[in-house]
């Protein structure tokens, strides 16, 4: 059993610790800091949040997506055919993203993620997992002014993002995770999702690949998801308690990324609660196929709460294993 995170990590701490990245971006926006100087701050904050995840005891970390404004635009804005539009509410949260607007044929230009992953891995004593936005979610959350069909758009995103996947594998990244949550709200459109993920990940070798969902359950689509060309499926058991039943009613042959710590509420779980949830999962999944993680990215929480949640999560996972944390 390993512990991990789903993607993003809060970018700034609370007082008395300084909000360096926030201040730096403000300075850059005022013209008092160059873009190169901002990258240096992003590098430092990336190293800082990796250290924090490791200090909490997390086995497989991410770079915290420190450089990302949101899950969509960091990668989408680098693709040909995509422009970035106005603010939209992200699903049922009180956070907002700038909507990608697809105005022409989507094309991969140059990798954005491989170098960032390499930097993060150099700073980390533990494996760093690379995060990719899912093609289905990108298609669903973009304004399509070119393709005229969700499926064509999702497949175009998948084809372009494959360039990122290949570059990550080539750079030596061993764990690549696709965050594609919106399918839980659009189960009727599962076929499109399946085709897009297949286009994105089929034939990838040399790295473990995962597809993560959140904010809902995969009841009804979990059997077909077993056929996806990926090694890990991530499920949110907090916002999607239906996943418990879904899991019991399927022969789950992949690894499971189990979101069993609520990343959207400051209420702190106890290690005992986490251990209970892990034990409940053990009926369906042997420990060597289990990742324990928060229910989604941690940016919905204040930094200090996110850290406490990770500590409790790790402690609970170790408790369930019968090992000291």
């Amino acid at each position, binding site marked *: 059993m390993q512990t991990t995170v789903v993607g993003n990590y809060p970018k700034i701490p609370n007082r008395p610790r300084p909000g360096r990245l926030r201040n730096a971006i403000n300075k850059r926006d005022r013209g008092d800091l160059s873009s190169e100087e901002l990258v240096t701050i992003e590098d430092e904050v990336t190293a800082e949040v990796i250290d924090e995840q490791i200090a909490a005891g997390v086995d497989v970390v991410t770079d915290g997506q420190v450089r990302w404004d949101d899950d969509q635009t960091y990668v989408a804005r680098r693709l040909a055919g995509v422009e970035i539009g106005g603010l939209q509410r992200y699903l*049922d949260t009180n956070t907002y993203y*700038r909507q990608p607007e697809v105005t022409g044929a989507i094309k991969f230009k140059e990798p954005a993620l491989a170098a960032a992953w390499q930097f993060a891995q150099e700073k980390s004593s533990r494996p760093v997992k690379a995060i990719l936005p899912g093609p289905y979610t990108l298609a669903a959350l973009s304004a399509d002014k070119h393709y005229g069909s969700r499926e064509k758009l999702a497949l175009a995103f998948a084809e372009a993002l494959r360039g990122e996947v290949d570059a990550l594998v080539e750079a030596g990244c061993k764990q690549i995770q696709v965050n594609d949550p919106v399918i839980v709200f659009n189960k009727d459109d599962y076929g499109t999702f399946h085709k897009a993920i297949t286009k994105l990940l089929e034939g990838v070798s040399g790295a473990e690949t995962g597809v993560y969902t959140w904010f809902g359950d995969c009841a009804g689509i979990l059997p077909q998801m077993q056929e996806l060309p990926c090694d890990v499926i991530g499920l949110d058991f907090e916002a999607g308690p239906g996943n418990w039943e879904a899991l019991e009613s399927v022969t789950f042959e992949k690894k499971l990324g189990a979101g069993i710590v609520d990343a959207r509420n400051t209420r702190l779980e106890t290690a005992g609660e986490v251990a209970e949830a892990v034990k409940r999962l053990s009926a369906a999944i042997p420990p060597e196929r289990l990742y324990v993680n928060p229910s989604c990215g941690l940016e919905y929480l204040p930094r200090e709460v996110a850290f406490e949640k990770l500590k409790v999560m790790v402690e609970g996972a170790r408790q369930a294993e019968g090992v000291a944390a």
Partner: protein
Amino acid sequence: MVVEKTQEKGTGSVRASTALTTTAVGSFGRPDYLTKARSAFAKGDIDRAELEKLEKQATEYWIRVQEKIGLDVLVHGEMERGDMVAYFSGEKGGLPIKGMKLGGLVRSYGNRYYHKPIIYDRLEWPGPMTVDMWKYAQSLTDRPVKGMLTGAYTMVEWSFNEHYPTRRDAVMDMAKVIRREVEALVAAGAKYIQIDEPAIHTRPEADFGDAVEAMGVTVEGIDAEFHTHICYGEVEEIWRPMQKLPVKQIHLAFKNTDFAYLDLVREQGYDESKDVGVGVTDSHTRFIETVDEVKDGLRRVLELFPPERVWVLPDCGLKTRTVEESEAKLKVMVDAVRDIKREMEIE
């Protein structure tokens, strides 16, 4: 339709216009001296009394501006509030609802962060939170000043809930708290109370009914005219259920969507017993609309609504605008209404 409003002196004794009533949504740009004073107060450099003096000074400024420009129903400007939820949850200078406190910083988008409140215990009314400021603002003018509150659904949706087993439980208790504040405002003489619900369409399929029910708990049986402000988001999805909100007026950001909501009125109707609050200037751009542009919007609205049912306002609170921009946005609005009334011979 809007009836004549005759009120006692000092609590808005001037009759509001009965057609194309003009008002504002809540907040205005904060003058520099107050922004500085708030940060000095946060650092402990000035005390609460000094800050309050400046808040009142700025409030009086905005009452005079609205009178001079010629608005019919005024707002106090929310000079004392930072955020519409945090003000009731532990923001410095406000009296927090019992069971709420401010949490750490959470990012909302880009480089914007806010202290997200936490519901950590049973919610209870702490005593009047907004009444003194309302009374002060009303004492300055003969025109009615609206009481301004945030609705139960939005209060809960924009907070962490550590205490209640379900969101619904928290929303219903919050509604009782807000009701106590409504009662206190009405007891103090408020005739119009606006209860903002900008988060109401967060998950329309799951729990919009709860939000409607909570509004009922908040206002039903209380003798005042209630308005609610809903902005942005997928208003299309809640158009029909939204009509069930037990308020006299719903106001919406029409300008922001170039009056596309009028199509919804045509297709899906609009509750005959309600007034409509029409946002005619975009609150989130520095660009000041021309009088002609506002008039054009109003003409489109008046194709569907009789003037008696239309209230005219900016799309949203103006706190992200400067003082000058806020004033300019109000002025084009009132000038446009004056022109339209003359042209269409509306009394």
